[in-house]
């Protein structure tokens, strides 16, 4: 395991070094992309200056709001649908084709309905994530062994206690997978929406920097989004691994 970790770090470091060499050698010109060490320095400067903190805070708040809404709605909806076979079978075709629908295409409609504020961005982040959470939740609930439910019944537990003490703990690894998906989709939805039509936020700032050839802002912001997304996903993946290891599944 330790060796694998070393290989992973080695691959990333190797790619960064290659990029650095290509930038320094002029194969990739400075206007297209500054060398990675320059991006790192610019990122530190950007963070120390604190000028973009309101933008970063706004984007992160919207990402977390979209994530929280998608996650809670998805879990509740998935749990309810699992108990109603007909409703589930009715919605199955929608779930199967949902990700073929370009949610971003509805952006103008969302602006008409919700105005130019943060609402449409959060809504897109929510819409992208919610079905992934529902489907993952249903998948987890389908796998709860019948014998565990029977054991709960023998222990004279009602439906609510069974859900809290048996069903949901069994589904914990699926809940973490759902959280990872919801978080990734929330980032894509919110930051992507800020690119298209917003007056603030990290996505807007990246787009603005791009049109003004401001690489000292654009690349550090892109790296910051990457880092935030990787760290949050990494924490969830770590919990998932711990859970699966305890269950002998990894």
């Amino acid at each position, binding site marked *: 395991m330790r060796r694998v970790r070393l290989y992973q770090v080695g691959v990333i470091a190797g790619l960064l070094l290659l990029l650095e060499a290509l930038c320094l050698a002029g194969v990739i010109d400075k206007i297209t992309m500054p060398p990675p060490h320059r991006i790192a320095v610019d990122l530190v400067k950007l963070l120390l200056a604190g000028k973009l903190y309101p933008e970063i805070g706004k984007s992160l708040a919207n990402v977390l709001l979209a994530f929280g809404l998608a996650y809670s709605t998805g879990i509740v909806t998935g749990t309810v649908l699992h108990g109603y076979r007909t409703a589930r079978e009715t919605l199955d075709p929608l779930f199967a084709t949902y990700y073929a629908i370009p949610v971003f295409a509805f952006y103008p409609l969302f602006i008409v309905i919700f105005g130019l504020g943060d609402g449409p961005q959060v809504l897109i982040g929510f819409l992208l994530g919610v079905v992934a959470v529902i489907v993952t939740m249903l998948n987890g609930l389908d796998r709860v062994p019948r014998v565990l439910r029977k054991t709960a019944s*023998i222990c004279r*537990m009602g439906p609510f206690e069974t859900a809290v*003490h048996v069903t949901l*703990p069994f589904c914990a690894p699926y809940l973490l997978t759902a959280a990872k998906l919801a978080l990734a989709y929330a980032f894509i939805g919110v930051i992507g929406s800020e690119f298209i039509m917003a007056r603030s936020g990290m996505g807007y700032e990246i787009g603005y920097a791009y049109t003004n050839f401001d690489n000292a802002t654009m690349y550090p912001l892109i790296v910051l989004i990457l880092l935030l997304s990787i760290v949050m996903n990494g924490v969830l993946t770590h919990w998932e691994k711990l859970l699966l290891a*305890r*269950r*002998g599944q990894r």
Partner: protein
Amino acid sequence: MTSAHVALKGVTKRFPASAGGQAVHALGPIDLSIRQGEFFAVVGPSGCGKSTLLELIAGLTPASEGQIEFEGRAIENEIPDGIGVVFQEDACFPWLSVRENVEFGLRKAGVAPDEKARRVRDAIAMMGLGEFAPSYPAQLSGGMRQRVCIARTLVAKPRLLLLDEPFGALDQQTRLLMGDEVLRLWREIGATVFLITHALDEAAMLADRIAVMSARPGTVIDMVETHWPRERDSRIVEQESFGATTSRLWKTLREESMKTMGRSAAAT
């Protein structure tokens, strides 16, 4: 009917037709009377409704017709107090340690914390799992996990212990040893034991009485008394009467098993 610890009168189970299928008459009518403190086993061909019978007694599924009584009270749409079940499948909660799994059996028992801790400790020790109390099920063998499930059932001090092929997934040596464990526990806790098994030797070794069921719809076609002393263990397999008992069971069951196989062949 009230003198029996468990009594079944005209019990029948029919499963309604599923989409495109036919209704299934799974079981009955069955009349049974199980005595207090008795070790009672049921054997029968695959699909005869043995597990359904156990679920009916446990209150996990309602009977289509007839009446089931436990300690003189009818079992109707709820799990009666005083019943414990050990299932064939691994029923350990994988996210809980051995200690927490056993504690789970007392979640609704309304037992004081001190008493709970003592009973959990005793049940774990009784099943020889003391050093594994902080371990998780994934770290245990199949036999040990089944012992965790037995400990979780015993901690609630059931007066009727229902065992649904509890050793089905274990190898023969472990099954014999687990059989000894169950006999020892049966003597210690004084509960009535109702064992479902497909293994004739297991039934002949463990039970005071054995009901033989017909092919579906399962009914009781023979009742065999073993006349074993209460103090017994797996060494009784060496006795001549053990062979005679298993022979009698097989003689009755052979034709029923052939019927089941014929039905399977016809279905394919």
